[in-house]
């Protein structure tokens, strides 16, 4: 593979006489630039190659300026500068920062001369190297860079690249870049109007800023008004996609809340046990993920991407056994005394936190995303969905679905519901209520552990992980209605979406405060939540 790549690179290299395959050896832009301070044509040629190899965005500017003969170097320190002649003085601009660094007399600086051979080379280099690269990613980035620089010199190459481009996404980016260049440099009004028309089909923030500046600065009235119209259209479309994005983020936050709360919906909702250590069970699940990952890293590094597949059952078992131990060791003695349960489990949460802190240390542990969970898909310019968020949404719904199935369709689920509805009756039917209690609590705790696996992918794995979710989880369960899994689902998603919709104009913290206040007020209106249980079970 690597060898083939090198050969292809070499071929292209020969074609354009540019060395971009040397990116790995490339020095930085800052290091390369001083190489232009020379009189040797050969050295300048090398410098161009080296500069291109840096892949720096400013390369295009330097090359264009060089082409126009405005690249100079200061005699005193050999610093390469961009020069603009203004009357009798020469205004210097630092190419590194694009800031003016003073006005000087001509004798202070020396021009870096350019000959025909170099010109040809520069033209080729301008945009060429990356626009025609083998990897679509690089071409895509090059198209973005051209879009940004809007250098007229890249146009011929861009046309060439568009002609041979096979990747649809990259091609459309290149066409956008071409339209952007035409918009800024085309002479005829019609060409520019056509460019605007093309650009307005792409509703992205980049287009918005481009069109906004055009509509403000263009001297051509027709272009100006066309840009303004296009701008409005783009803004409308952007705000629509922004709404979709908000919903997605809200659903994503909601699915995180759902994961954290669904275990609680079992222990609190179904059993009526206030488990303040629920967050710590989530935290234990996250640490289990970390341990499993480290185990894979040490023994099966090639299968590291699939460590999550092991981590999920492992976290379920670890957190579930903790849960059973908690139920048998503490909660069993406190049934019917919910406030005492609350206090005892709070104490337990302190112990678990401190335990994890003693074992793993107080700092964050690094749990990495597997390759199939990293990255994102861009639905349109305005809407980017990250894979890990998508996976968590899917995963949380899957867990909820399995849980509903377990509760409604299995013998264990039936026993569980029987015990929670009428303990003595269930007991006289021969159900071992103590056993069912322990397993139910273990189930809720195990799900908390699984939530920890998911949270380890998007949040810091630290001893305080659980603390951040416990209040929210209780809010979700209380808001949705105790004893009702669908209520938990609706509660989680509505809280998530409400939060994300308020964030843009209220800020993250204030949005959260508003949501909390809203829930507090809501509880007054409907003390039993959205989907309240009816009948005898209520008055307990």
């Amino acid at each position, binding site marked *: 593979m690597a060898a083939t790549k090198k050969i292809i690179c070499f071929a292209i290299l020969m074609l354009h006489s540019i060395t971009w395959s040397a990116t790995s050896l490339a020095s930085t832009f800052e290091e390369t630039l001083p190489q232009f301070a020379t009189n040797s044509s050969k050295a300048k040629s090398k410098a161009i190659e080296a500069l291109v190899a840096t892949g720096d965005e400013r390369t295009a500017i330097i090359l264009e300026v060089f082409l126009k003969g405005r690249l100079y170097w200061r005699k005193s320190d050999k610093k390469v500068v961009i020069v603009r002649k203004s009357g009798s003085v020469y205004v210097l601009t630092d190419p590194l920062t694009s800031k003016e660094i003073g006005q000087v007399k001509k004798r202070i600086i020396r021009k870096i001369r350019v000959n025909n051979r170099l010109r040809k080379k520069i033209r080729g280099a301008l945009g060429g190297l990356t626009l025609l690269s083998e990897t679509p990613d690089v071409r895509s980035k090059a198209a973005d860079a051209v879009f940004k620089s809007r250098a007229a010199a890249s146009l011929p190459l861009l046309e060439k690249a568009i002609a041979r481009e096979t990747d649809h996404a990259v091609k459309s980016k290149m066409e956008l870049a071409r339209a952007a260049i035409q918009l800024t440099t085309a002479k005829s009004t019609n060409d520019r109007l056509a460019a605007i028309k093309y650009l307005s089909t792409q509703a992205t923030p980049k287009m918005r800023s481009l069109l906004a500046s055009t509509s403000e600065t263009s001297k051509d009235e027709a272009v100006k008004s066309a840009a303004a119209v296009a701008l409005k259209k783009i803004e409308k479309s952007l705000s629509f996609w922004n709404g979709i994005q908000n919903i997605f983020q809200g659903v994503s936050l909601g699915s995180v809340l759902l994961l954290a709360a669904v275990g609680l919906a079992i222990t609190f909702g179904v059993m009526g046990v*206030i488990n*303040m250590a629920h967050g710590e069970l989530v935290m234990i699940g996250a640490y289990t993920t970390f341990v499993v990952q480290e185990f894979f890293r040490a023994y099966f590094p090639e299968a590291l991407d699939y460590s999550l597949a092991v981590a999920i059952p492992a976290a379920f078992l670890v957190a579930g056994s903790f849960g059973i131990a908690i139920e048998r060791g*503490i909660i069993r*003695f*406190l049934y019917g*005394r*919910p*406030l*005492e*349960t*609350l*206090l*005892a489990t*709070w*104490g*337990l*949460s*302190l*112990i678990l*936190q*401190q335990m994890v802190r*003693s074992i793993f240390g107080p700092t964050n542990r690094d749990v990495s995303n597997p390759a199939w969970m990293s990255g994102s898909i861009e639905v349109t310019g305005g809407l980017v969905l990250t894979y890990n968020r998508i996976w968590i949404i899917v995963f949380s719904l899957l867990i909820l679905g399995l849980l509903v199935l377990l509760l409604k369709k299995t013998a264990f689920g039936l026993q569980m519901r029987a015990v929670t509805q009428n303990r003595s009756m269930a007991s006289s039917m021969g159900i071992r209520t103590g056993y069912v209690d322990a397993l139910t609590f273990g189930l809720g705790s195990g799900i908390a552990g699984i939530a920890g696996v998911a949270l380890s992918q998007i949040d810091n794995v630290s001893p305080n992980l659980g*603390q951040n979710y416990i*209040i929210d989880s*209780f*809010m979700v369960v*209380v808001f949705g209605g105790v004893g009702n899994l669908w209520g938990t689902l609706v509660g989680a998603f509505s809280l998530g979406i409400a939060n994300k919709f308020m964030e843009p104009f209220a800020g993250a*913290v*204030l949005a*959260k*405060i508003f949501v*909390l*206040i809203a*829930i*507090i*007020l809501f*509880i*007054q*209106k409907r*003390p039993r939540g959205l989907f309240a249980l009816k009948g005898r079970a209520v*008055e307990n």
Partner: protein
Amino acid sequence: MAHDNSGQKSGFAFLLTDTGGKILLGLIAAGVFLVPILNLMVPVDSAFHLPTYLVALFGKYLTYALLALSVDLIWGYCGILSLGHGAFFALGGYGMGMYMMRQIGDRGVYGNAELPDFMVFLNWTELPWYWFGFSNFSFAMFMVVLVPGILAFLFGWLAFRSRVTGVYLSIITQAMTYALMLAFFRNDMGFGGNNGLTDFKDLLGFNLQSQGMRVSLFILSALAVAGGYVICRYIVSSRLGRVLVAIRDSESRTRFLGYRVEYYQLFVFTLSAMLAGVAGALYVPQVGIINPSEFTPANSIELVIWVAIGGRGTLYGAVLGAILVNYAKTYLTSAFPEAWLYALGALFILVTIFLPKGIVGIISAWKVRKIESSPDPEPEAVGGIK
């Protein structure tokens, strides 16, 4: 409850019937009398000299004790487990803090007589409206009681009218203090954000750091605990207190008997919040800072365990628990910093499972057994003021 035997109805009978309470008041009186002598009059090199840092430390514990009293009033006698009392405490503290911020005047780092330092730092040009009046001591003290009172009244009015009780109430009070914490962390709120209010100089013109001030604050706190105890004791031994206990033991039954349960709950909840506010106001000058971390839900839960350890529903038990636990905390966090959370966690679990009536419960059980041989063991004195 064994201690609720208020037979007579006149005079101070409500105090005299409560042995633990009598001991408590006696210890407070002794503290108020002895501490100034031992600290201010006994020479420093004497073995009987009481160091100033201990005076400040126990002054702080006493404000915690008052806070615990306020929680015991609603939890021990009315069954309302508030996990938000830390918020009322902190609000009272902020009231006092705002007064002391105004007292700094132009002695701050920026030397601005009009604005506290943090506002100058944030480029604010004028004092927000809710800071007006806080340069006046009596107004500030009025606010210290009023703000927690109003918040508790509104919150309670909404909650109790809709019959939100039990764990639901606990959870939403926790959400309340959490929301307040997030709010006070914001710089835009105008309460100093993250750093809170600090760098206090003096109170009513007296230097906060002076020995006399420390002793005065100690005495004030002790008197506040005594006053808080007397108020709570008066309430719980009145007819109203009887209804409260009835509500605690069976809320719906009390309602069916014709009592407007929510009004009783609202009354004690508001009163208790005001007591917590006073405790906060006394706390801040003794520690010299108030910041949003006082609103942390964990703090509010922790103070419930003080009451549980001392013995809920006895009032003096709450005082005992607050002082004991905090003394242990001071000792353990410096001697074995790792162990403190383990110890606190274990306390929560052991007390709820094995000691539902707290230390006072052990003592009274022990008393019942040895009623003939030793009539007056007075072991409560262990946790008192030294």
